[in-house]
């Protein structure tokens, strides 16, 4: 790993948003079954971008395209390009991409090691030569875990509570000082207090990191994100759609087959106050089947 990637994160956020990721015509299929069709969007630096939409619309799949983690899934095939600062991420070694772009998963997945080692192992595998103790402490302080665990850094991370584990996973990611952090429903398995604490943390982190977060919690999305991308599962209606996927799958996917699409991508305020599409409005309208996917699926716009 080159040390040039360890750039100083402490400079102030620039006022005009700079594009960090550019996804173009992303299509993904698992085992010849397409799940995501023609996604094109830009992710801006030092912003929190939220991906929302019903289950199965491919939000998490898209998220995993940004650090090339989909490649490790058996039977996954991706077309289109994702660029990091205008460079195709496929031209990097996958290890470098993942080292520069951190990820936090839906279920807390700390390693079955001590709290200290959970953070130190990431530094060690990447050949960090600085003071590991100091970096561990900084990361734990940033996620507000330091005071809770400083007495016993040797404690096995699996003995922490769920909220603590998830904050440890975030600390583990930010200890590497990534350029962006991908979060796949980081609060899905947490109680409201832990969840609120993580929201606070994300808002603080925004000054230094670019964050992409998948969430089903619309309140969370409204509270912390700067921009929102709304995805939906839709059926194919005509044959021309199939052509875009011909490179992706050998199977003859029938008309009416459901695939994830990007419906709307706009600043959070725009999405919540003036959505351009009826499906978005249906999904966001409070009280009426907020979390039900079937509701918005069945409408046509």
């Amino acid at each position, binding site marked *: 790993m080159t040390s040039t990637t360890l750039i100083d994160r402490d400079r102030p956020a620039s006022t005009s948003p700079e594009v960090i990721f550019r996804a173009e015509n992303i299509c993904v299929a698992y085992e010849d079954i397409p799940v995501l069709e023609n996604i094109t969007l830009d992710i801006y630096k030092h912003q929190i971008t939220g991906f929302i939409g019903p289950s199965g619309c491919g939000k998490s799949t898209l998220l995993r395209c940004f650090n090339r983690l989909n490649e490790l899934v058996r039977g996954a095939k991706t077309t289109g390009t994702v660029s990091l600062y205008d460079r195709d991420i496929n031209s990097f070694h996958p290890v470098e991409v*993942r080292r520069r772009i951190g990820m936090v998963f839906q279920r807390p997945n700390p390693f079955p090691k001590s709290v200290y080692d959970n953070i130190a192992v990431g530094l060690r*595998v990447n050949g960090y030569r600085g003071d590991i103790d100091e970096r561990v402490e900084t990361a734990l302080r940033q996620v507000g875990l330091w005071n809770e665990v400083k007495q016993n850094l040797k404690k096995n991370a699996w003995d922490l509570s769920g909220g603590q584990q998830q904050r440890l996973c975030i600390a583990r990611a930010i200890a590497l000082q990534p350029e962006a952090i991908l979060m796949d429903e980081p609060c899905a398995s947490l109680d409201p207090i832990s969840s609120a604490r993580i929201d606070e943390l994300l808002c603080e982190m925004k000054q230094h990191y670019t964050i992409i977060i998948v969430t089903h919690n619309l309140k969370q999305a409204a509270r912390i994100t700067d921009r929102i991308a709304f995805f939906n599962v839709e059926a194919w209606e005509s044959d021309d759609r199939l052509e875009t996927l011909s490179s992706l799958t050998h199977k003859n996917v029938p008309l009416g087959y459901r695939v994830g699409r990007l419906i709307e991508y706009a600043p959070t305020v725009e999405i919540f106050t003036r959505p351009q599409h009826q499906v978005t409005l249906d999904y966001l309208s409070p009280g009426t089947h907020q979390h039900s996917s079937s509701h918005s699926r069945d409408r046509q716009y």
Partner: protein
Amino acid sequence: MTYQNEGAETTGSTSSFEVNMSTRYKIDTVFKYATWAAVVVAIVVLVVLLVDVAVDGLPRLSWQFLSSMPSRKPEEAGLLSALVGTVWVMILVALICFPIGVGAGIFLEEFSKDTWFSRAIEININNLAGVPSIIYGLLGLQVFVRWLEPVTGGRSILTGAATLALLVLPIVIVATRESLRAVPDSLRQAGFALGATRWQVVREHVFPLALPGILTGTILALSRAIGETAPLITIGALTFISFLPPLDNPIEGVQSPFTVLPIQVYNWVSRPQAEFHTNAAAGIIVLMVVLLAMNATAVILRNKFQKQA
């Protein structure tokens, strides 16, 4: 069976569920005793065997028995050379089959792509685990005794160990793959997401968690190897050895002729004199003690790694 008759009686009830708890409890009880009987049969057979061997062999066990070479006179005969041969062979088998078996398992599970070739290898490895041991003996005879004679020294400890290692290799590979598969995928993803290479993920996160399972599989494999007689007879392990492999020169040591406990026992059992049969019973006890000691060591190692993980 009575419960079938009882079931028929309640079919006339208006409810669409047949509650009929007593029948279900009865089936439960019947099944419990059936499984219990299976355990009893297995245990009783084992106990009878052990008691029979102990009655015959225990009086014969003595320091003289352990420290003497084989002899024509049953009361002077001992199994020192067989005991030492077994220890040499088992150490070598472990040294050969652990790295190769675990390495192959890690490659197949963590590194290889899912192609028809890797699937073919997988099927073949599973089949190899079921190949009769005498076939491995013939393989060892041709490859290690004849072709590789300059290396192995012919009918030597090294040849025997290499043959037995081949025999148990599939067991180690399958056990390794099973325990790697049991490690949750979320940990691999966490490792990769932190920018670790495949090797780093395996070394730091996957292997330590899988190690207890891998050790258990290796113990099973070695327990099978220690009792094998057929392949060693095929490659020409001797039945009468009155010297020990030289310890000061390991290369010469592993190239010397040898015998092992099962062969010594087999040899004694096939003699006409009853005294030799007593020797055989005592030999079986020694073999079992060695086996238990080996397993105990492995269990201790496993528990130690389990605590660390």
